[in-house]
């Protein structure tokens, strides 16, 4: 009589309490499902398009080319003295990860709707898997960045060790926000429609195609309240390696917002998901 990896369970079914930590720790028991979910999403995407996984590479390259031409050459936006392509890309890279993670994770409950009403598994899995899938894309784009850096003769310094930390920060921020939006969308479907627009505006309010130095002094403090600023500036600090200190103010804000978003996001989400089968 095989029991598999999961141990004998004793489960308590009751109306939703304020915050059920068990719904989070359960993910460990379902870790195989999380892995398979990520694997499946990537596999399906690969199968569906002619270019397959190549799309994950083509997309960042195309963006790079267009941005360099439009913003770098035509608009002649300054880039703090660095070659525009690498300047823009170092900002675009984390942004693309953040944007894809938030967009797919917020919609993950809706896109997997059928399964959720037929079988029980921790509902945190679909959004978490979506974020991990975006992470895979990020790693592929990172490969392009490395090529770019070698091309432009930009040598990575010891700062590169900070990248995993930045990655954790971005993941926490993206996951927290997505969980909040996903939970909110269960009742208010409109949130899904407003999201792409909001993300688009958000991109312009982040120093991706232009440097932070372009934002005038008093406004720049307000501007830095945008948690993604910390992430983008952090990545720039690692990749372009300017002489100054790391951007502590934006990074502290990012860390604070990420922690709050993750805590309240998980809390709100685990509360809402318990009756989502009644509404989806």
């Amino acid at each position, binding site marked *: *009589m*095989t*029991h*598999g*990896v*999961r141990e*004998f*369970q*004793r*489960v*308590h*079914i*009751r*109306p*939703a309490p304020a915050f059920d930590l068990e719904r989070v720790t359960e993910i460990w028991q379902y870790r*195989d*499902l999380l*892995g*398979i*979910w990520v694997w*499946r999403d990537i*596999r*399906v995407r690969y*199968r*569906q398009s002619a270019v397959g996984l190549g799309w994950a590479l083509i997309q960042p390259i195309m963006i790079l080319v267009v941005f360099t031409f439009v913003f770098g050459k035509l608009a002649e936006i300054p880039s703090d003295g660095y070659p525009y392509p690498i300047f823009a890309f170092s900002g675009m890279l984390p942004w693309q990860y953040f944007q894809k993670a938030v967009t797919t994770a917020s919609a993950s409950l809706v896109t997997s709707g*059928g*399964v*959720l*009403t*037929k*079988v*029980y*598994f921790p509902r945190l899995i679909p959004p978490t898997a979506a974020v991990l899938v975006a992470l895979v894309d990020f790693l592929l784009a990172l490969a392009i960045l490395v090529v770019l850096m070698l091309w432009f003769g930009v040598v990575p310094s010891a700062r590169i060790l900070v990248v995993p930390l930045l990655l954790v920060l971005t993941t926490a921020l993206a996951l927290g926000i997505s969980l909040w939006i996903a939970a909110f969308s269960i*009742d*208010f479907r409109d949130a899904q429609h407003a999201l792409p627009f909001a993300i688009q505006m958000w991109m312009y309010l982040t120093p991706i195609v232009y440097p932070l130095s372009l934002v005038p002094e008093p406004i720049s403090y307000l501007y830095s309240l945008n948690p993604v600023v910390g992430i983008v500036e952090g990545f720039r600090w690692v990749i372009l390696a300017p002489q100054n200190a790391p951007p502590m103010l934006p990074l502290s804000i990012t860390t604070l917002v990420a922690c709050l978003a993750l805590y309240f996001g998980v809390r709100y989400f685990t509360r809402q998901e*318990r*009756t989502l*089968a*009644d*509404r989806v």
Partner: protein
Amino acid sequence: MTKPAISAQCLGKRYTKGLSRADQLVGRGLKSLMRSFRKDGDDVRNDSDVIWALRNATFEIQPGEVVGIIGPNGAGKSTMLKVLSRITDPTEGEAWINGRVGSLLEVGTGMNPELTGRENVFVNGCVLGMSRGDVRRKYEEIVEFAGIGPFMDTPVKRYSTGMKLRLAFSVAAHLDPEIIMIDEVLAVGDAAFQKKCLGAMEEVSRKGRTVLFVSHNMPAVAGLCSRALWIDGGRIVADGASGEVVAEYLKDGCPSLAQKIWADADSAPGDGTMKLRAAQVHDAAGKVKETFDVNEELKVTLKFELLRGPAVILVQLRFLTEGGVTAFSTFDRDPRWADANRPTGHYVSTVTIPGNLLAEGRMIVRCLMHTRNPNQKHIDVENLLAFDVQDRADGTTARGTFGGRIYGIVRPRLDWVTERVSK
């Protein structure tokens, strides 16, 4: 003392009808605003918007019990399974589950048409709760049970519906949890497949697993389950030995689809010449029922009005199976009225259908009424009434004690004579 597999206390699930939360927020906001203007501050809550799909469900299921859950449609059976499977939360009460649960509310959950059969086995298996190691270990068995070996590396979108079903059920059949909850999954597929499913279920109960089986298939429930819970209107109406509960359930059908009354002549079907005012399916004693035993006599009574006369009327009832096949038609040939010119007025017609004629299943009744010379149709109600015919498989019917599938839209009990003619 062993802990019960499932122990529920006062489980309840409430649904609020209609509006989504967003609309409700606005509605509630306005209501509270209005309330602040009202003089005596009375809180008028609208109770009709609330539905208790499940109320006060209390029971204990010991490990190894095979329990059937029966009841009319919409009674709360699926809600009960959903709450116990943790798919949705109860509104009140609580339950304790000891052991891993595998729910089969639908087969093939999580399968993706782009992936191959092999890949989908892993996806579906993990979704149902197996670990990757479990799936790997059981992979050969799963493929063999499904019987689609050579196609495992083809994308599922190329499979026929039958193949998809077999694969999905095969994965589910190898789940092997301590507690299994099944919701009418066996209602799909062809005869050979259903046989396989019933076989799998028997095997599972032999292994000592706890099974919760929601079904409309009374012979299966009486045959496979030792105990049955009858749920009606969200409450547990009966809980006991499956044979007894099933018998009680069959005796006491519920009148809803079995009766139609049009109090208001304007809304009644028909035209200026004839109007149908009421129709019911009932037993010999006159009790309106929705469920009948296969060997029970049943009657259909029609109340109608002839407004323009005198006229020769043709009253017809057609009995159809759920699949739309007409089992038979019957005409009112009562010698007093059949070809005679009837005067205007209200009429009541009753037809008796003998026991041991209809087969098991749901029958739909259609009513047509014509006037003759010239033939003109005045009433044609397609889904007028519906009722279920059940066979208890206790030996007194044509089915005997056989629990499998019997073909045919009628099931007469005929006389057979058999002699032994040689050694």
